[in-house]
């Protein structure tokens, strides 16, 4: 981690100091479904004043402003929002192809940035953004909220404590049984609203859904993939989209650990799920809980006729045991709230976020490698220059 860098080596070029009691003056660029969702959470947080919103679609902008402070300003041109010197930080929640130009412009304007995942549209942008963020001295966080969620902290902890034994595989899926479209009133707006269907704007299910899981595997293994194979297609939703409606990839991590990452848009059984396979147990991570399934190893049998020991609850045999996390009585919050709280903390104390430009780069490059593997039907390798 380059965590120490921010405080010492770089002096923010523009950003003004924000006291611990001060509210952070925030603007949101992109108040579509995700941006408005973030605004809803931000509204309840004492850390922020949401003072500006920007969106090219009038309904979205209106929705954003309805969640913002009184007198908040509305923009259709994000550069105008960035020109407002009173704004400390911006959330960028726009289609993927806009992430890089908007993030670069926001850095130039001296804004701290919370950029939604995934980080960039392509690999060169990811590499370049790392350089630009590093020289800026600004706080730059990627919206991988699960890095801030107690559930994943606990899973990482029990992996370290060897509850699962030797871990050899991850099985990740992010499935849904829907066309993944938003309704479009004016046909001219199809590509602006349903940008997820088009490669011109994003990487499809891998960049918009599985991105979280790839980042989670990177986080849990403290590594990044070495290579990847994949197959994808448009075999179910033949509705004019050109991003995959199904993709299955296998990432190879250091020491032969493999992670399959799948998205299927025609089946929703256990829609979001990450299974971690160890030789002692399996952990299955679902949306807001995780279960452990111990392996039944009868190493006691044969030697003796019976075993005396503390009672094994029958629920621990063959069925899952829920992984407890968090403190007793602690409120269960939306994981994004923890991510946004930490962003505020980083802005105030000039800390490097846990989900930062380098972990963001690793995620984005892995996504592009996975799509490239499916597109070319050839193994894609992590190149040394990606992380030089």
């Amino acid at each position, binding site marked *: 981690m380059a965590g120490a860098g921010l405080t010492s080596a770089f002096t923010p070029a523009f950003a003004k100091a924000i006291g611990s009691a001060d509210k952070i003056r925030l603007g949101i660029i992109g108040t579509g479904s995700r941006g408005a969702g973030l605004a809803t959470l931000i509204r309840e947080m004492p850390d922020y004043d949401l003072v500006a919103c920007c969106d090219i679609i009038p309904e979205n902008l209106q929705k954003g402003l309805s969640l913002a402070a009184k007198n908040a300003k509305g923009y259709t041109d994000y550069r105008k929002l960035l020109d407002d010197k009173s704004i400390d930080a911006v959330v960028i929640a726009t289609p993927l192809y806009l992430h890089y130009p908007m993030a670069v412009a926001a850095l130039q304007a001296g804004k701290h940035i919370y950029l939604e995942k995934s980080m960039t549209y392509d690999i060169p942008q990811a590499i370049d953004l790392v350089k630009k963020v590093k020289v800026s001295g600004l706080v730059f966080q990627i919206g991988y909220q699960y890095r801030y969620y107690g559930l994943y902290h606990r899973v990482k902890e029990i992996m370290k404590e060897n509850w699962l034994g030797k871990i050899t595989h991850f099985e990740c899926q992010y499935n849904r049984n829907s066309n993944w479209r938003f309704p479009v009133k004016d046909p001219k707006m199809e590509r602006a609203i349903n940008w997820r269907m088009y490669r011109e704007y994003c990487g499809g299910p891998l960049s918009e859904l599985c991105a979280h899981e790839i980042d989670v595997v990177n986080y849990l293994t403290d590594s990044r993939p070495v290579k990847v194979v994949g197959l994808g297609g448009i075999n179910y939703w033949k509705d004019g989209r050109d991003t995959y409606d199904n993709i299955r990839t296998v990432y190879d991590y250091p020491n032969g650990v493999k992670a399959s990452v799948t998205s299927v848009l025609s089946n929703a059984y256990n829609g979001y799920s990450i299974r971690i396979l160890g030789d002692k147990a399996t952990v299955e991570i679902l949306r807001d809980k995780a279960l452990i399934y*111990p392996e039944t190893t009868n190493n006691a049998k044969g*030697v003796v006729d019976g*075993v005396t020991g*503390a009672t094994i*609850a029958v629920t621990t045999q063959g069925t899952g045991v829920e992984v407890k996390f968090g*403190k007793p009585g602690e409120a269960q919050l939306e994981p994004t709230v923890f991510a946004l709280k930490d962003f505020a903390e980083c802005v105030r104390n000039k800390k490097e976020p846990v989900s930062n430009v380098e972990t963001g780069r690793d995620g984005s490059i892995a996504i592009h490698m996975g799509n490239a593997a499916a597109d070319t039907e050839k193994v894609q390798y992590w190149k040394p220059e990606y992380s030089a």
Partner: protein
Amino acid sequence: MQETYRIAGQAQGTTYAITWYADRELVNKTQIDSIFKSLDASLSIYQSGSLINRFNASQKSIEMDGHLARVVEKSMEIFCQTGGLSDITVYPLVRAWGFGAKPTDTMPDSATVREILACVGSDKLQVRDRRLLKTIPCVQIDVNGIAQGYSVDVVAGFLEARGISNYMVEVGGEIRTKGLKLPDNEPMKIGIETPSVTGFDAPVIREVISIGDGAVTTSGSYRKFRESGGIRLSHIIDPKTGFPVQREIISATVVAPDAITADGFDNALLAAGINGAFEILNRRPDMQAYFIYRQPDGTVADTASAGFGRYVVAKADR
């Protein structure tokens, strides 16, 4: 011709296994499961409407059935012999600490514990013929610490009544054996497991014993506990302090003539600590015990009462 017969299943929230050696089947699973049903209807805090739950909900008293009467009688006896360390009226504390029928997320503070302690103490129970009475309405009992051992005895008694005299009955790690394995006339071997790190690790054998005609049970908090601020809270609550037991003993294995005795004492021995446990054992020559405990430097060691050695099967004979 002597055959080996086995019945295995689930009961009392855990598994059971019965093995016997005879020339005929003599017992079937339906019979065993109906025994467990009758035990649950009487003794289970997890079953709504059970006799024990009706007593807990009652203001004054209830009429006991045979199961509850036997378990209460034995519990009162052990309450006296352990200086109150084993106490079935601990249930309100067990619930407050989140180990009752309904798990909780909260932890009681010391004021709450003090308040609950007013309802705890087997001196607040009275038995008049078949009636079990409480002196104050808030008294509630939990016989989980002894019921499993008692169940083993009930099943063993059933086998014996059917003419079976070579058997092993095991319910959730509590065991009773009688006779030998036929036709080879071999003694039955029982593994004592090493406490696992996690709540669900498969058992690993640390010692092997053979106890002839008798029972062996093990108590330990390594499978059932809660974590709070990095500290493991044992499911065994000290009825005197009202707080979870924090002792050096990780597991206590007790050999006794019957399983209700072994099971009735094992929690108390664990709560008494090594020295206290040996004091209790000195007064009970019919009981032997083996302890796995944590030494002050953090390493794990074991120790046993003087008479325990005769049960241990030498490594060469395992």
